[in-house]
């Protein structure tokens, strides 16, 4: 096996995995706090892809030339709007269903994702859209003939993913909001008795999850340069898989699951067969869940009698 090819595949897998992880965070946070699979989360990612293109073109129209300023401002813009989407969707489509049958919010979420997809298609057209390449160039390792590389944009993805994950972890661990989140997660009624406004906390979780999806959406869109109103679906399923792989409900688990899934896909398609890479990814998921029924970092389910 060629060392450089292996190196390149590891880089590929790592970048892909980081993006999965960022989207997976949204699934895992929402699941952790209200035990619901938010199927519309992938569409939030899709929205942020459109917001990226809109942000970049509006900002360049206003005369922002520096790619770094463009990226940073677009990130803020997309995060702000998608957070609001997260909160509004939760308020309108999920909150009234809290406490009712477990599957009702799931169906509502499927409905929301259909609405979002078609609303974007109707507003923005069905065409495949793109954003210009803002950052060129790559770090290369090796000589002229044999090398593996990581583009600067990929470096940005990994660094930003790492920083956001770290930041999120710190928020959940050390801030009042984070403590309140964990309290609501453990026992919503008790938390409410203690004066925690559970509805607000849940809204905040949706906002944070959506913001992380926006981070992923902006970075991925800038990296791959192309998107359409359908991108939320595949990314959503992959990220959800990653979240479960890592143990749904666990933040580090989401990142670990994402990276593992990314690496598995890259290495399998690189060295075996890319036709069956998804079969392999899902097979891996099933195998891991058989031996660890609550994912890699998830808390084992104790059977209470």
């Amino acid at each position, binding site marked *: 096996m060629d060392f450089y090819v292996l190196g390149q595949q590891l880089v590929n897998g790592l970048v*892909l995995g980081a993006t999965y992880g960022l989207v997976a965070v949204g699934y895992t946070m929402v699941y952790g706090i209200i035990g619901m699979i938010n199927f519309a989360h992938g569409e939030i990612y899709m929205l942020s892809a459109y917001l990226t293109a809109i942000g970049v073109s509006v900002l360049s129209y206003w005369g922002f030339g520096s790619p770094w300023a463009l990226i940073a401002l677009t990130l803020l813009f997309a995060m702000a709007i998608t957070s609001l989407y997260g909160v509004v969707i939760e308020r309108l489509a999920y909150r009234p269903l809290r406490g009712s049958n477990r599957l009702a919010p799931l169906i509502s979420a499927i409905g929301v994702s259909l609405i979002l997809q078609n609303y974007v298609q109707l507003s923005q057209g069905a065409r495949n*859209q793109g954003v210009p390449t803002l950052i060129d160039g790559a770090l290369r390792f090796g000589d002229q003939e044999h090398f593996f590389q990581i583009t600067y944009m990929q470096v940005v993805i990994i660094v930003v993913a790492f920083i956001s994950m770290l930041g999120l972890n710190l928020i959940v661990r050390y801030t009042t909001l984070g403590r309140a989140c964990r309290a609501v997660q453990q026992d919503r009624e008790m938390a409410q008795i203690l004066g925690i406004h559970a509805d607000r906390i849940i809204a905040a979780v949706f906002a944070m999850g959506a913001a992380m999806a926006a981070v992923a959406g902006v970075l991925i869109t800038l990296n*791959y340069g192309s998107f359409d109103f*359908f991108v939320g679906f595949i990314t959503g399923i992959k990220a959800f898989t990653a979240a479960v792989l890592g143990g749904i409900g666990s933040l580090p688990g989401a990142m670990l699951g994402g990276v593992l899934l990314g690496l598995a896909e890259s290495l399998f398609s690189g060295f075996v067969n*890319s*036709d069956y*890479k998804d079969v392999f990814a899902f097979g891996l998921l099933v195998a891991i869940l058989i031996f660890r029924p609550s994912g890699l970092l998830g808390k084992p389910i104790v059977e209470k009698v």
Partner: protein
Amino acid sequence: MQSWLGRLALSLVLASAPYLQAAGKEIVIGVAGPHTGANAPFGLQLWKGAELAAQQINEAGGVDGRKLRLVKADDACVPAQAKSVANKLVNTDAVNAVIGHFCSSSTIPAASVYRESDVLMITPASTNPRVTEDENYKTKDCSALTDAKKKESCELGNYSPIMRMCGRDDQQGVEAAEFIATKLKAKRIAVIHDKDTYGQGLADAMRAHLKTIGLEPVLYEGLTRGEKDFNALVTKIKATKADAVYFGGLHSEAGPLLKQMREQGLKSAFISGDGIVSNDFVSAAGGEQFVSGVYMTFGADPRKFPEGKKVVETFRKTGYEPEGYTLYSYAAVQAIVAAIKGSGDDRDGHKLSKWLVENGVNTVMGQAKWNPKGDLLKSGYVMYVWDQKGKYAEVGQL
């Protein structure tokens, strides 16, 4: 697209209005394709092309005074919907002919409905060979029949009401394979496809023809539609040291694949089929710098024909770039109209088909002639190359 709320209101009104249909007066043509869903851009191309053609024909007085009316039929590229949409067009809308569908996987089941109902269907875009080659409807031998009437009806039955305005994947694959082997003189060829009926059909045809000229692809693999990260595959292609990469699929995947190839420093030639014929290919690839030098097979440039040139200009005046299958769809309307005018029949798909096969039509795409199976005699595939400005032109005419 802009004020879709207004259009929603309008369509509500229209839907609630009673059906007023002057039967026999109008000529109704169904435009079936993916008007929603992931493939909606192509549905739009079909619709735009048919729309302008119908409008211009109506403005010129229609077909012997009869106006054309188009009916939009959405199959979303879902095979199950395709058949019910086809039934709706045939039975409820009582169409005279159909333009569509787009995805071969939808066209094939829908075609069986049109066949059973003897309705002429011209697909501007479905290039899969199976569209016209249905196992259940083989050409019959009528020579043994003595009864003149029976013989006539038998012979008529051999003119298939399922026709194409485009080439076939096998023709396209052959064209591209020849080009790669003789013009590019590539020896190590990687063949990639999107595992879809169209894309894989192209790739299979490419592989088959490469074999006949003694070449074996160094890599033959599929990617997943809808994904954007093909880095792992690109690294793999790089490891095979391919000097040419053939991609069977659509621009939405071709763009990112190409971009990632170039970003990883892979400079091999990139060749694809008519699935990337769209300006969106440029934005999907992340800019003109990436598409420069990409080859693709596509029908002859309509701008070469005076009529085609005029139509393209009319489209541009309305702010729409007639890309991809737009003109194919336009040409399909022309063919249907010509057949109705010429044959004197406005509904029997076999008669219309027979007329088309016997006479051929002058369209915006040039002279079109068919064989009784419904395939174009001359595929007319030409190799194009993209330039640094994000435009394409025939090879050798740069």
